[in-house]
């Protein structure tokens, strides 16, 4: 069995021990995060669980906790996120594609790149102020879903662009060369090969970005999403409320019941988030398999 000298096998044993320690450490770090999340979820669940029923989902907000529900906020969030996805995915992906495939690699590209990275770090309230000034006031879109969606899109665009660019960068040059050598234009190459090959990575970025948008509160407060809405938006120009705003509103009331309602709202928000992520991961896995 011994094909290594004694000193070699001792140092090998030490290296194995090190590897084991390190993987244990990483495991611990991972699990501490999971445990923390579990505790949080548990706390929220015991607070909010007894309010969770169909009546809660299907009712408008009310001054009386027993009658209060989350219908308008839930529908508002679904509207908002759909609009945000509709605006930010095409714009973000096209921007990334342009920057990676078409724009030169000169100084201007570099400047744009740095700027986008910086924009990703700007506090969301600043986007709210921007949205208020431009969309609500200047473009006179009022406190509508469109204003909210445009503001949120601005907020998450940098994330989508950066993630999409990274995904596009991982597509090997040899695939592009293969396409070019068949007499394909840049556009045909990008559309038929680069985009599909980077699709799973782009999806990941989009999921992360939309998940952020769903929980953002500050910019919506800034542009003046309403806190008490007893009707459903019927079009993108209607005023609206959203889950985080409704939760915020309930939390800031003194009565214990409303705090519990907030917890129930949080459960709903998390469920929507989970559902969204699951759908996206499903789509991603499906397309990934097709590519292989």
């Amino acid at each position, binding site marked *: 069995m011994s094909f290594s000298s004694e000193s070699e096998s001792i140092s090998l044993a030490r290296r194995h021990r090190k590897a084991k320690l390190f993987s244990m450490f990483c495991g611990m770090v991972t699990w501490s995060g999971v445990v923390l999340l579990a505790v949080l979820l548990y706390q929220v669940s015991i607070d909010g669980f007894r309010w969770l029923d169909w009546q809660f989902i299907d009712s408008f907000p009310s001054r009386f906790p027993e009658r209060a529900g989350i219908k308008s906020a839930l529908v508002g969030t679904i509207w908002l996120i759909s609009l945000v996805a509709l605006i930010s995915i095409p714009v973000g992906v096209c921007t990334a594609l342009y920057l990676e495939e078409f724009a030169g690699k000169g100084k201007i590209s570099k400047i744009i790149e740095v700027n986008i990275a910086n924009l990703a770090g700007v506090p969301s309230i600043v986007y709210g102020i921007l949205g208020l000034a431009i969309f609500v006031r200047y473009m006179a879109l009022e406190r509508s879903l469109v204003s909210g969606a445009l503001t949120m899109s601005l907020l998450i665009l940098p994330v989508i662009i950066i993630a999409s660019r990274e995904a596009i960068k991982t597509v090997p040059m040899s*695939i592009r*060369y293969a396409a070019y*050598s*068949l*007499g394909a234009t840049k556009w045909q190459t990008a559309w038929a090969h680069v985009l599909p*090959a980077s699709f799973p990575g782009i999806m990941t970025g989009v999921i992360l970005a939309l998940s952020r948008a769903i929980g953002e509160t500050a910019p919506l407060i800034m542009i003046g999403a309403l806190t008490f809405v007893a009707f459903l938006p019927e079009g993108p120009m209607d005023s609206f409320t959203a889950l985080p705003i409704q939760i915020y509103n309930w939390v800031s009331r003194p009565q214990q019941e409303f705090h519990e309602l907030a917890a129930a709202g949080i459960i709903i928000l998390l469920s929507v988030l989970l559902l969204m992520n699951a759908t996206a991961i499903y789509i991603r896995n499906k397309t990934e398999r097709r*590519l*292989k």
Partner: protein
Amino acid sequence: MIEFQDPSILPEINTPMNKKSALELRKVNIFYSDNQAVKDVSFNIRRNRITAIIGPSGCGKSTLLRSLNRMNDFVEGARVEGELLFADENLYGKDVDPVEVRRRIGMVFQKPNPFPKSIYNNIAWGPLINGYSDSTDELVEKSLKQAALWDEVKDRLHDSALNLSGGQQQRLCIARALAMEPEVLLMDEPCSALDPISTAHIEDLMFELKERYTIVIVTHNMQQAARVSDYTAFMEMGDLIEFNVTKRIFTRPSVKRTEEYVTGRFG
């Protein structure tokens, strides 16, 4: 000084193209930013013949090959000077569309680079985007047969091309290039990643293909150059040292450097 046995393989500067040549290189210089990778290279590439480009690593073979279908356009800082005549037009002329050039002059790369798509779509895509409207089924079959791959893949045309072996992938890439029915086929060390059997496959294939296509191949394998090519260009440090019929290059080269290189007395 370069010595030529067959005068038709030497371009006559400032005259129309020789009828026998598919491509004529006239004083071609290629630069990467300030570095010159190819220096004053002139020779004719004969139609329906196989022309081999040999020479030590880094001498500019791939650079020269890439200039023949304007793939150098994608290399940052690359600049081509001189005349590259194709169908009586300079490939680098003002109103030449590089996309059109690449459609008519195909390329097979050193490393197999199939698209991450099905075998079928690998082949059908090029013709489709170029407006091919007949049945692609037949075209796919024909191209795969030409590349001697049909029998191995005919039952799994819709499987991913990435599941093929390296040699099969390379033949798929050849089939993909052939589906475009290019006039010239450029091959940059197409066998360097392949085993002897796949290599033999591809060499056989080249013999068959030259009836219809003009082939230019870069290779490090002297036997391969001697076996398959009709003409051979020997390059060193960006210079064309000697260009002649292959037999002559390998038996009685007129330049000492060539002899040293092809007999392996020099790396």
